[in-house]
């Protein structure tokens, strides 16, 4: 059974994180003005803002894919200096490896974590079960719909048991119904696993629905305008005990209460 493990979620501190680019004609562009933010373990933080407000830049810095021009980010007591499998990421365009089948994609990070082959398969199947895609384990990503691809990507990210998960407009490319469905399921999974999540979107509705806290950013130059606490979710989602029970049966939790 997949259960929350103690001590997995870690706090994330952003201390004066900033990014500026030099353009070809010698000007500098302030992509992100200094950001200070404390994200508590297990928090679901949503960053919302228009395109060009530096929210993707911020996420890439936190994930270690881009280095900041100033400031630093800390995960627990470790400074972010490059990508690490302890920090997972879900991309807008899924980023599934097309040469691997669905289960191969979920196993990818597990193999990098040097988990023995036999255990890998079992873990990957459990996470595919979590997103209701066990029947598609042997399929190639190109055979799946957009929503299913993103569910595979979510399974792939959660399977490596990172302490923090970054999500870069993960539902941005999906139609409204699928989007709503995945938001709902993401919250269920998150409530089971209690990871720290930093989620980026340009949809205010999505932000309010998902978040514990919403960070509102403005563009040119990118900076934080307001930080809001959201309590919409508490009304939207039934008590947690419910989801814990439904995940104990063989029925995927997806199919319940939907």
């Amino acid at each position, binding site marked *: 059974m997949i259960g929350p493990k103690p001590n997995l979620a870690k706090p994330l501190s952003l201390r004066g994180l900033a990014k500026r680019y030099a353009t070809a004609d010698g000007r500098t562009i302030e992509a992100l003005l200094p950001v200070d933010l404390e994200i508590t373990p297990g928090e679901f933080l949503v960053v919302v803002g228009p395109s060009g407000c530096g929210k993707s830049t911020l996420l890439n810095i936190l994930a270690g894919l881009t280095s900041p021009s100033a400031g630093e980010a800390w995960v627990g007591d470790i400074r972010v200096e490059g990508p690490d499998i302890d920090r997972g990421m879900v991309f807008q365009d899924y980023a599934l490896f097309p040469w691997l089948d669905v289960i191969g994609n979920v196993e990818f990070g597990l193999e990098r974590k040097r988990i023995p082959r036999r255990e890998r398969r079992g873990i990957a199947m459990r996470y595919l079960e979590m997103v209701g895609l066990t029947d598609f384990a042997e399929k190639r990503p190109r055979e799946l719909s957009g929503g299913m691809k993103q569910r595979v990507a979510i399974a792939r990210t959660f399977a490596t048991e990172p302490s923090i998960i970054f999500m870069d407009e993960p539902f941005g490319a999906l139609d409204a*119904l699928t989007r709503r469905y995945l938001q709902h399921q993401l919250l269920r999974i998150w409530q089971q696993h209690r990871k720290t999540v930093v989620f980026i979107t340009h949809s205010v509705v999505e932000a309010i629905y998902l978040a514990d806290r919403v960070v509102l950013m403005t563009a040119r130059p990118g900076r934080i305008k307001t930080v809001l606490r959201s309590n919409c979710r508490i009304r939207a989602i039934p008590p947690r005990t419910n989801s814990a029970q439904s995940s104990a049966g063989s029925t995927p939790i997806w199919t319940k209460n939907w």
Partner: protein
Amino acid sequence: MTEAAAPAGAKPSGPAARLLRSTTRLLPYLYAAVGVVTVWWAVVLIAKPHMSLLPSPLLTAQTFVQLVASGELLSHAAYSVCRVLAAWSLAAVVAVPLGFAMGRWQRLERVLDPVVELFRPISPLAWIPLAILWFGIDEGGKIFVIFIGTFFPILLNTIAGAKNIDPVLIRAGRILGCTDDASLFRKVVLPAAMPQVIVGLRISFGTGWAAIIAAELVAARSGLGYLISNGMEVLRSDFVLVGMVTIGVLGVLFDAIFRWVDRCYNWMGE
């Protein structure tokens, strides 16, 4: 629910179905062969050319059987195939790593690209005189010509494959634990570029196979090219035609092998 989940593929499987499918694939070749032989026979019957100019399909078939029985045809074909295989493998060993390096390091590509563009339009056949001067009429000269001919298609396709990898896959690979260049290359770059590399290997084998005949026409004592040019010298056009048919059949055969390999490694779908 918007999630359309089509059930598993509807293709019939099993040995019988597979045999049927491969027979169906062979049919067009059969039609082509029948068509060519019909036209050929019609020309022979109507124009009645001298035997040394255009022998009948029947006579050519008899010569074919004779050459097969004496082992000559097999030996010539084996010479040609081995030369192409040797030169092509050598080209692959050099061009694939170089192509990956050029595709992933812009600086290297900027330096080497003009050199490649300069040499690329030169037909491998233009290298035959120099090849003979430098390496003589032994194996070295021919392998050199085929190497030149196969090198560029492999190199250019590998560069394209390595360059056009979706950047988000690289980012996903790094996030999922490929933190050093070696593992990123092995787990992401290599499989992502593989289909294009195989295209390069397949195309180059075709150009190599065409070029070996030209090289053997000029300077050789063996090989299918030699069989053809010798046929001309001794006025045996049936030898020439047997050589040509063999070249065609072997060419199709190798292409089929590559397509099969391609199907195993190509994740882009049919």
